[in-house]
Every structure is written in structure tokens, then in C-alpha cells.
């Protein structure tokens, strides 16, 4: 086993994990505050990708600029989705909540299919082929940037939750719904914000990946599943958990690809880990608190 190959694998695993972390952070924030598992999570990632793609082919806008534009837009989209679709079922049985987001996922995937056809698209940027050398390992520039921004975004969100008043209010809602109402927190608005933030995160993650990942209507589902795995591993509702969990899963997948025989085996490894956690330690690594 070549040490260069090994360190290459580890680094690319960590980079991938950084993006996974951002995806899972959105999911875990939504679950932490509202106790809703968003089965349509990955489909918002897909929407983010198409957003960047459209801006690129129509107006030639660089994806990283699109990312900045996307943040408020997708935050708003999440706000609206929460208000109109999620809020009515917050008191409904859990199964109905799940089915609602499944329906949303079904709708979004096929809306994209309808609007954009099943053909895989890709977003070409002039610097897409550049590499960067970190500690002797050569990595793709765009993957590196994606991961750095993703981790930075996750950390920013963490600081927001831990240090600001609004973040404190969100954490209060996550922990104690009735108590928050009693002290005058506008819980409804908190839910809108949490969902908006979650969607903004996952759309950002998608846009960051456009320089090196294919775009298709069905690209969301594997990311939704991965987000679940990461979030459960880290502890549903825990932001640090999602961050660490993302890195771990990224590593597992990368190392899995190296050591196991076929690509489908690496996915099997991920799902097996997932099942083991669900069964043996459902609270994951960090239990359930947001920060």
C-alpha cells in the first residue's frame, strides 16, 4: 500500500466529507428544531445545482457567485415551504409528516425531470481542472474550495446558533417547545428560519459541487440517504455531530473505494454502518443537542 495513494485517499475522503457535513447540517438543524425528517432534503440540493447551472448557461455567471445569490433565495424558499406545507402537519402523526416530505421529494424530482429532461448536465468552469498541492498531496482545486466553504459555512452556522440571540432562540425551540412559547419566542417564525437555513445549507452544498459533480433530476436521493446516515451517526439534532459524522462517512467511502472491490460495496458499507448505528446507538455520537 503506497503511502501517497493512502494519503490521497484520506484527503479526498475528508474533502468529500466536508460537503457531506454541510448537507447533513441542514438536515440535522431541521430535525433538531422541528423534529421533522426532511425526506426531500437532497432534492433541494438538486434544485441548487440547477439554479447554478441555469445562471451559468444563460448568463455565464460563475457558480461561486450563484452560491451567494442562492443563499437568500433558498432561505426564502425554505421559509415558504415550511409555512405552507410543513406547518400544517407539525401536529399530525409522524407517518403523515414523513409522507408529506416524500411527496415533496417526488414532486421536486419529477418537476426537474419535466423541466430539464433526464440528461446529465455538467457545469464547466475554466479552472475546473486545476489542482492544488497540500502536504504533498495533489487535490482538485474545485473540490478543495467546495470543502473549505462547506466547512466554513457549517462552522458559521454553529457559531450563529451558539453565540447569537436568534441562535439561542432556535436552540430553545429545539429543546423545549412549550417553554419557548411561554417565554414569548415566536416558535412559528423559528421553524421558518430553521427550515430556511437548512434548505439554504443544502442548496449551497449542491452549488459548491457543480464544478465537479454531475447534475441530474435524480441526483438528490443518494444525498438524502447520505445525509440521513451522517446525521444519525453524529446524533440527530447535533450540529457538531453532523460535521464530524460527515468527515467520518467521507473517509469511510473514500477508504472503502480503495480497499473494497467494487463501488457498490462502498455504498453497502455505508448502509451497514447506518443500520448498526440505528440499532445499537441511535443517539449517535453526540446525542441530541444542537450545539
Amino acid at each position: 500500500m503506497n503511502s501517497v495513494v493512502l494519503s490521497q485517499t484520506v484527503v479526498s475522503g475528508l474533502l468529500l466529507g466536508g460537503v457531506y457535513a454541510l448537507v447533513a447540517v441542514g438536515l440535522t438543524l431541521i430535525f433538531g428544531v422541528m423534529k421533522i425528517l426532511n425526506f426531500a432534503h437532497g432534492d433541494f440540493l438538486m434544485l441548487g445545482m440547477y439554479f447554478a447551472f441555469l445562471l451559468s448557461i444563460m448568463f455565464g455567471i460563475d457558480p461561486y457567485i450563484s452560491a451567494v445569490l442562492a443563499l437568500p433565495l433558498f432561505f426564502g424558499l425554505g421559509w415558504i415551504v415550511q409555512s405552507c406545507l410543513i406547518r400544517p402537519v407539525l401536529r399530525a402523526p409522524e407517518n403523515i409528516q414523513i409522507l408529506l416530505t416524500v411527496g415533496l421529494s417526488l414532486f421536486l424530482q419529477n418537476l426537474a425531470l419535466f423541466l430539464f429532461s433526464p440528461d446529465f448536465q455538467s457545469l464547466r468552469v475554466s479552472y475546473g481542472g486545476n489542482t492544488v498541492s497540500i502536504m504533498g498531496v495533489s487535490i482538485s482545486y474545485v473540490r478543495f474550495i467546495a470543502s473549505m466553504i462547506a466547512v466554513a459555512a457549517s462552522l458559521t452556522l454553529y457559531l450563529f446558533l451558539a453565540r447569537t440571540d436568534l441562535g439561542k432562540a432556535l436552540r430553545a425551540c429545539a429543546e423545549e417547545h412549550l417553554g419557548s412559547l411561554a417565554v414569548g419566542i415566536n416558535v412559528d417564525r423559528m421553524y421558518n428560519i430553521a427550515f430556511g437555513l437548512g434548505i439554504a445549507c443544502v442548496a449551497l452544498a449542491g452549488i459548491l459541487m457543480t464544478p465537479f459533480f454531475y447534475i441530474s433530476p435524480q441526483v438528490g436521493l443518494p444525498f438524502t440517504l447520505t445525509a440521513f446516515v451522517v446525521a444519525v451517526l453524529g446524533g440527530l439534532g447535533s450540529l457538531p455531530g453532523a460535521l464530524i459524522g460527515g468527515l467520518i462517512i467521507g473517509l469511510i467511502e473514500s477508504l472503502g473505494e480503495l480497499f473494497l472491490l467494487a463501488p457498490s460495496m462502498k455504498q453497502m458499507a455505508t448502509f451497514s454502518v447506518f443500520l448498526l448505528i440505528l440499532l445499537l446507538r441511535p443517539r449517535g455520537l453526540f446525542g441530541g443537542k444542537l450545539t
Partner: protein
Amino acid sequence: MRLIAAALFLVFLLLLPAFAYSDIVARVMPRGLSGASLLNVFLLIFLFGYLAQCWNILGGFAGQLSLGHAAFFGIGAYTSTLLFTIFGLSPWIGMILGMSLAGLFGLFVGFVSFHYRLVGPFFTLATIAFAELVRLSALHLKFTGGSMGVLIPLQGDSVWQFQFSGKAPYYYISLFMLVAVTALIWRIARSRLGYYLHAIRQDEDAAEAIGVNTRKYKLIAATLSAALTGAGGTFYAQYTQYIVPDDILTVGLSVEIILRAIIGGSGTVLGPVVGSFLLTPIAEATRVLFSGAGSGAAVVQLFASDATLAKKLSGYFSFLVGGGGGGGALMLYGLILIFTCLVMPSGAVPWFERRARR
């Protein structure tokens, strides 16, 4: 009154193959549809209704939302198909073995999940994980044909080998399966098993306190649901004569199965049947009305070109009107599911029943 309507409808269904190929029908139907495709639509209605009923036992009655039923479907299909292609075993026997294996897997999934007290979304996630493992196994293992799947050699008409050159025999078999499973659900609903499952769905602790062995009954539901779903898999394999993981083992298929049950009314006897009759024709209708999947590459080129904005928009508009990239029916399904969750979460059948009572 309703019984007479149902009986008449059943007679209509029984006689349909007889006149499906006739001239009258050919003249009435929209272009692109033939007698054979008419039978195909009904057959799919029956099959999906059957699968939805099977899911109904676990997901509707017992209230355990499984999104992994495609795995049981696939296990049934692969078992009978491989036994046939490798050992020449009659698919009827293969169906029974497939049901047993699917049932065993259902028992396993249930046992593990309930033992570790997985409830609500965690149970659902576990079923997805288990199903994905089955799909990945089928993709990976050599003897299951990997991503190319398995082809059943055409051997003409043979009852013993569960192969027919015409659609009518398949039509009747699937109709029979739907009627049989619905009758089974009807019997279960009036028995202790049915009552217990309904109670477990609504409040497990309360049920335990008054003598219901909730673990045992959930396992019964899981096993029965899985086994019967497996039989559907065998039927599908024999009908299409080609099985491939991307078709029959996906989460998407699991979602389509539960859609009929949820929208029709989960936990009811007729819900899945009604759901299937409501939903399945939509898919076929959109397939016919839209001329088919447009080319995404052409659209991308159009947008990247120097054409005027008006030209781009009108080009895109005609792309959409022609059916866009496909997916119209499933989009509608998604909207209907959202609508159901928001407005009538118990499904269409209970909603209509409540109206009728007033």
C-alpha cells in the same frame, strides 16, 4: 346498493379481455392505445393494487411505515426467476419459494427493528437501509446478473412455466391476485388480528396494557406483508420476462407501492384498490398525451445559443407542452400525495365514507 355496483364492475373487468381487441374499442380509444395496451393498463392497476394491499397489512393496519417493500418484491422476483433460469424450476413453485424467502426477510427486518425498538421515522429509515442493501447486493453479485439483470427465455405458451404469449392470462391472474388479497384483508379486518393491528397502530402501550402481544403481531404483519409482496414480484418477472435492479429494487418503486395505499386510504380494505384505480391511469394517460421525453441537450443548446429571448422561451414552451423531459405523472403523484397529507390524511375512501354518512 354498493355491492351491486361492485359486482357489476367485477363482471365488466372479467369480460374486458373478450372485447379489448374489438373494433369498437379501437375506435373509442385515443391514438397510441391498442387493445393490448388497454389490458396492460388494467393489469398494472391490478398489480399495483395488489402490492399496495400487501403493504397495507404492515403499513396501513399495523401503522409501520415501510419504505423498503421493493426489497420483498425483488426477492420474490429474483428467487423464482433464478430458480427457473438456473434449474428450470416452474415459476409457480418458484413463487412459493420466493414468497417464503421474502417473508423470511420481512420477518428478519421486523425482528431486528422491533427488537431494537425502532419507531416512526427510524423504522422507516431502517427499511430503506435494508432495501438498499438488497438492491446493492443484486447489483454486485454475479449470479443475480448484476446491473444487467436477468432475462427469462421466451418459451411460448406454457401454464406450467407461467408464460403466455397473450396478455389475457396475465390479466386474469393479476385480477385474481388482487381480488384474493383484498378478500384476505377483508377477513383480517374483521378478525382479532385486524383489530389488534389497528390498536397497535394507534397506541402500542395501551394495547400492551390490555393483553396485546404487540411484538408478535407486528412480526406477523411484517412477515405476511413481505411474503405476499414477493408473490407480486414473481408475477411481474413472468409478465415482463426481464428483471433488473434499477426497475424493481428501488426506493422509487417502494414509494409507488405505498402511494396507492396512502391516497386510497391506508388501513382500510378498499383503500389500496381505489388508490390504484385512481392513480395508475394517470401515468398511462400522461404517457399517451405527451409525445415523449424531449431532448435535454437540445434545450441546453438553445439556451446557450445567441437566439433571442423570445425564441428561447417559445422553444422551451413547445418542449414543455410536448411533455418536457417526462415525469409528468409522477409530479402529479407527488402533488396528490402532498394534498392527501394536508387535506385528507386518512385517504380517499374514509373521506368519501365520511361524506356519505352526512
